[in-house]
């Protein structure tokens, strides 16, 4: 962070490792470079290659894919000519209807609400930073993204789909709905978008834009 919190005109930044508290300097990172803590090997910071435009486009794509993945038919089951279709959020609803609303909420939070917050939130922040506009709430949204990050489980749900398909294989025919294709694409696109979204880089950019909680 050339003109950030280290102050003065140092190009190095003093950071404390968040896993062992060891103080160390990190220099300016080249695109694609990352640094690890010399003491405990935790990831200190990365500078993903590709700049800001690529993650913006990927998040836009993810947003569009979400519309398809969440609203179109996800899977259809066929047993002796009888059909049953569900959407992805419909799986949470099924739990609710069976009297397990809390579990339904967990499914909804991890597969729909969490990912939507992450994609729209990081898209908003990336746009603000890319356009160099201190859009309202940039700081708050960055804080929220950090809290929601561990709870997005789109990729885990995919394994659930595979297991469910195997379990149903000799009972019924499964017809893959359009939402499932969109969902597989969504996993790829949103994972790529997330891997290019590095809070360290965003905060440093926001420093330069003067988006601070309290002026120093």
């Amino acid at each position, binding site marked *: 962070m050339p003109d950030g919190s280290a102050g003065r005109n140092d190009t190095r930044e003093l*950071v404390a490792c*968040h896993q062992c508290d060891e*103080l160390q300097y990190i220099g300016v990172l080249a695109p694609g470079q990352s640094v690890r803590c010399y003491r*405990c090997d935790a990831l200190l910071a990365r500078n993903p290659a590709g700049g800001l435009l690529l993650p913006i486009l990927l998040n836009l794509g993810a947003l569009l894919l979400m519309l398809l993945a969440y609203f179109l038919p996800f899977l259809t089951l066929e*047993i002796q000519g009888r059909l049953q279709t569900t959407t992805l959020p419909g799986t949470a609803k*099924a739990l609710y209807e*069976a009297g397990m609303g809390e579990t339904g909420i967990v499914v909804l939070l991890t597969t729909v609400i969490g990912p939507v917050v992450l994609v729209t939130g990081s898209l908003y922040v990336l746009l603000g930073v890319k356009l160099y506009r201190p859009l309202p709430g940039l700081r708050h949204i960055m804080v929220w993204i950090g809290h929601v990050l561990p709870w997005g489980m789109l990729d885990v749900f995919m*394994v659930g789909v595979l297991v*469910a398909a195997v379990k*149903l294989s000799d009972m019924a025919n499964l017809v893959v709905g359009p939402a499932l294709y969109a969902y597989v694409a969504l996993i790829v696109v949103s994972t790529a978008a997330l891997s290019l979204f590095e809070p360290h880089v965003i905060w440093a950019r926001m420093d330069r834009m003067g988006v601070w909680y309290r002026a120093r």
Partner: protein
Amino acid sequence: MRASCLGLASCAVCNQLMRLPARRTGLCPRCGSQVYVRKPASLSNSWALLLAAVIMYFPANLLPIMTVMYLGSGQPDTIISGVIRLMMHGDWPIALVVFVASVLVPLLKMIVLLYLLLSVHRKSTFRRRERTRLYRMTELVGRWSMVDVFVVALLAALVHLGVLADITPGPGARAFAAVVILTMLAAMSFDPRLIWDREEDCQ
């Protein structure tokens, strides 16, 4: 040198370094979050959440996660019986995936957290780098245990064809979701910096 030895602390949200004397708290100048030198009440929170997870682990494994009715007959399935059914059916890869995600990972995660908590209480200096790595692994891998909850949700949503075939979710799935969330929260409340904290190191 550790940051806390110099009266410095880094924000858990944005990693901003700030001046903060021990046992004090303040607002991060950059993101406005509450900053602590160490996660507050890390050990007691982590112990409480881990204990809750261990307690929930019993209903999660003893109660049925779902009941499959097919052509008028069927039986409730627990997590283990579901794995055994997949194995007997010859679906080895999928049985292995479910076994690892639903049985091995939650169990190992609880054992690792127990070990880390005990080692911090004993002020152990044994292989701190590896123990920190162990902590990172439990944080990384915990979410994958949710697979079985998603399987139950999918099957419950798809198989609703009356006497022909019907799958109803069972209370075991609820308990199992609780185990996954509780172990994730227990890992999040644990402060790995405690592994490295020793008074002597500040001198």
